[in-house]
């Protein structure tokens, strides 16, 4: 039997991004014992990188805003395959969740009358994003982290969960190992919340940190939970493209919200050339109107640069493919031009977009107040994830909850910017609350020792193969390359079939990877263990994308470029089948109740 230490909690939270922290706070407030596990140090999770803001219809900057408009915007952005209940709860509860942060020490930017200031963002009809310059994620994570510090939550930092344990079909705990020493730990719990974030690392060009390897998706999947919408991946239109080592790092949409415009190598503002019909009524008809919009003129409509991300990303892709790109394979994003319009533009840009100024100055030697940036699409966010109940966030496995990016439903086919940070706090709270209740109503689950031993044995196998095994980094790089090339922004049946084939060979290679040395803080070993998660989610993405023979939101197929009504009635669902096979099916969408249908219709004009 392998050696390990054991811990026991009522509620165990995996992940310390916005969702995990918010869940931990809620569970702790409910009076149950809470353990929190995260792969990195506290406060470093991916949430820290979020820039633009969090969406909540507080109507501070435009009193026409309300939960109804936010709900309708979210559904339209998601192309109506969202879980309507989640979109509804999110729109209704986000304002309270944001306000509560202020009581915990968050310091948002202010309106002239002293309230939380809200900014414009793509797909949101009114200025809706509460923000702090362009470091909103830092503000969110630090506020939650500091608040958690005083609540008696036990935090296990730099611990990686490698297996989810079940007891007769119910969640029972997890197996993890710590990076510092490479030792194993078994956590038993009455309820487990997954808040592990995204899957960006399945792709070569991504804005995600190394943590985004789809662990929660894969852990849940391997335990028998259902994943939905995995074909919907958000490629953010503006990532850095130069220099190569920073390729993929995000350039916030806030740049466009502040008046930044996209141009091709011919100097043409190409976004005006292709405005989808359903957005025409809300889009500016000329650059002048677009400028007025970003200057908060309420009678103006938004510039086409602020159309949904999937659309902007494809337009950029098209320009580059047509040979109208910038020298390093992107297009130009210009904020410096606003000096034609505002007095001390340089100061203005530095104040509104301090981290962007900093980022380009330090990493690309470029002054964004003087020169345009070069940008191109980057893998940013996964709409798909663990299928949950809209109210409680419980998955199909009793006692297993999911919140944040690893859960699915609220975003449908495409997420609006700013809806993730608010999703984290709305559904993080709900997951914490319902998990605490579940833990009260159910006794301790039994930990299966044999399953623990198996998980540990499997985790140590790369050391047994040692030098003779394959380099885990090579397999990871090959997978990322394939996903990027074959299941990217523009998709084709043959290419995706090829990806699925390759994934099988990568799986075989992953089972042969070897590492040497000691277990302490061993990145190679860590990469080896991440591989199976990346492979599981990649396969789910490719198979789901093959199943959806249409184009919708973040999923664009060159062979089926139209959006088709018969595909608007279900989510593609993936579930583990016998012998490691993947079962792909179509899960019907619950019908939208009439009163919410009416809300959507009202907002269509």
């Amino acid at each position: 039997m392998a050696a390990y230490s054991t811990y026991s909690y009522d509620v165990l939270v995996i992940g310390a991004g916005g969702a995990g922290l918010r869940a931990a706070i809620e569970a702790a407030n409910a009076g149950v014992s809470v353990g929190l596990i995260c792969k990195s140090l506290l406060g470093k999770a991916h949430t820290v990188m979020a820039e633009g803001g969090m969406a909540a219809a507080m109507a501070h900057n435009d009193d026409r805003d309300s939960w109804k408009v936010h709900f309708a915007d979210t559904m339209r952005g998601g192309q109506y395959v969202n879980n309507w209940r989640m979109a509804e709860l999110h729109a209704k509860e986000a304002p309270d969740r944001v306000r509560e942060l202020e009581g915990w020490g968050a310091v948002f930017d202010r309106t002239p009358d002293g309230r939380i200031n809200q900014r414009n963002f793509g797909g949101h009809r009114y200025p809706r994003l509460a923000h702090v310059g362009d470091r909103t994620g830092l503000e969110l994570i630090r506020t939650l982290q500091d608040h958690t510090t005083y609540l008696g939550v036990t935090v296990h930092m730099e611990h990686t969960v490698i297996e989810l344990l079940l007891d007769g079909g119910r969640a029972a705990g997890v197996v993890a190992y710590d990076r510092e020493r490479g030792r194993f730990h078994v956590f038993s719990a009455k309820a487990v919340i997954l808040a592990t974030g995204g899957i960006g690392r399945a792709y070569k060009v991504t804005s995600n940190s190394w943590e985004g390897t789809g662990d929660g998706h894969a852990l849940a999947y391997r335990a028998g939970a259902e994943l939905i919408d995995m074909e919907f991946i958000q490629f953010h239109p503006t990532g850095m493209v130069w220099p190569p080592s920073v390729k993929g790092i995000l350039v916030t949409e806030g740049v466009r919200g502040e008046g930044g415009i996209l141009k091709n190598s011919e100097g043409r503002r190409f976004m005006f050339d292709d405005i989808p019909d359903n957005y025409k009524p809300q889009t500016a008809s000329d650059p002048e109107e677009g400028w007025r919009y970003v200057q908060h003129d309420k009678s103006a409509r938004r510039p086409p640069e602020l159309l949904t991300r999937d659309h902007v990303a494809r337009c950029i892709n098209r320009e580059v493919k047509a040979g109208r790109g910038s020298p390093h394979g992107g297009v130009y994003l210009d904020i410096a031009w606003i000096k034609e319009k505002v007095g001390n533009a340089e100061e203005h840009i530095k104040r509104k977009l301090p981290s962007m100024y900093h980022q380009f100055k330090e990493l690309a030697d470029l002054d964004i107040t003087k020169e345009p940036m070069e940008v191109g699409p980057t893998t940013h966010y996964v709409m798909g994830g663990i299928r949950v109940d809209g109210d409680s966030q419980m998955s199909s496995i009793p006692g297993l909850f999911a919140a944040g990016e690893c859960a699915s439903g609220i975003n449908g086919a495409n997420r609006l910017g700013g809806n993730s940070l608010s999703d984290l706090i709305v559904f993080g709270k709900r997951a914490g609350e319902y998990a605490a209740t579940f833990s009260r109503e159910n006794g301790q689950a039994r930990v299966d020792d044999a399953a623990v031993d198996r998980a540990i044995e499997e985790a140590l196998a790369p050391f047994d193969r040692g030098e003779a095994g394959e380099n885990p980094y090579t397999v990871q790089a090959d997978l990322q390359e394939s996903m990027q090339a074959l299941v990217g922004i523009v998709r084709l049946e043959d290419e995706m079939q090829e990806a699925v084939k390759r994934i099988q060979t990568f799986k075989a290679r992953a089972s042969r990877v070897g590492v040497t040395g000691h277990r302490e803080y061993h990145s190679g070993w860590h990469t080896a263990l991440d591989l199976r998660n990346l492979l599981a989610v990649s396969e789910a993405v490719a198979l789901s994308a093959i199943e959806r023979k249409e184009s919708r939101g973040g999923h664009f197929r060159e062979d089926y470029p139209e959006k088709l009504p018969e595909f608007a009635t279900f989510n593609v669902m993936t579930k583990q089948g016998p012998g490691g096979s993947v079962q792909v099916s179509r899960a019907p969408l619950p019908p939208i109740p009439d009163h919410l249908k009416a809300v959507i219709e009202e907002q269509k004009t």
Partner: protein
Amino acid sequence: MAKATFKIWRTHEGGDGTFQTFHTEVTEGMVVLDVVHKIQAEQANDLAVRWNCKAGKCGSCSAEINGKPRLMCMTRMSQLNLWEPITVEPMRAFPPIKDLVTDVSWNFRVKKTIKKFLPRKPDAPDGTWRMAQRDVDRVQEFRKCIECFLCQDVCHVLRDHNKHDEFIGPRFLVYAANLEMNPLDTEDRVPDLKNEHGIGYCNITKCCTTVCPEHIHITDNAIIPLKERVVSRFYDPITRILRMAK
């Protein structure tokens, strides 16, 4: 393409360590963290390094590069002299774990000793407050902190004099300042700053401000005003008399 020589600190069994030399190629735009990753992928799979965002936002990748405390992900190779070997070693003010990774858990314990945010009653019936932007500018500066702990690393009180039990260090003086200067806060941390948190140890050398990647004016804007509060509370004769008279 250029050649570079890196001397990276490697720890050995038992805890001590030595520099290991690596030769590698660097290309345009690379930062030190890229090179460390390249070496890790090609030459030393078990090389330990902490990082997350690779964009200067999370504060994980702190190290000492050619002896200077810096973020590896924000140090471009083009700023360094490639004719000389480049040394990369862990932060020295914290116990080593492995290679470039140190045990920074002390920082998380210190934070717990600082009294938490305690807002005044909401200003409006809907439970919200009103604050002007100019009243929060200063606090927002402090809240830019990414907890890289480079300031803690460079502060001689911690680094050379090991006063970890008596002095909370510049990072947590910034943290305390952010709470003290939040217009909503009603808690009093001044006695703790003097008695428990050792603010008196700071002799305003400003080394912390020099290394802060977020360009927070740690000494001028956070520490000195806090010191002034301590002085006026405990040492200023007039306030003392007034307090005694109360």
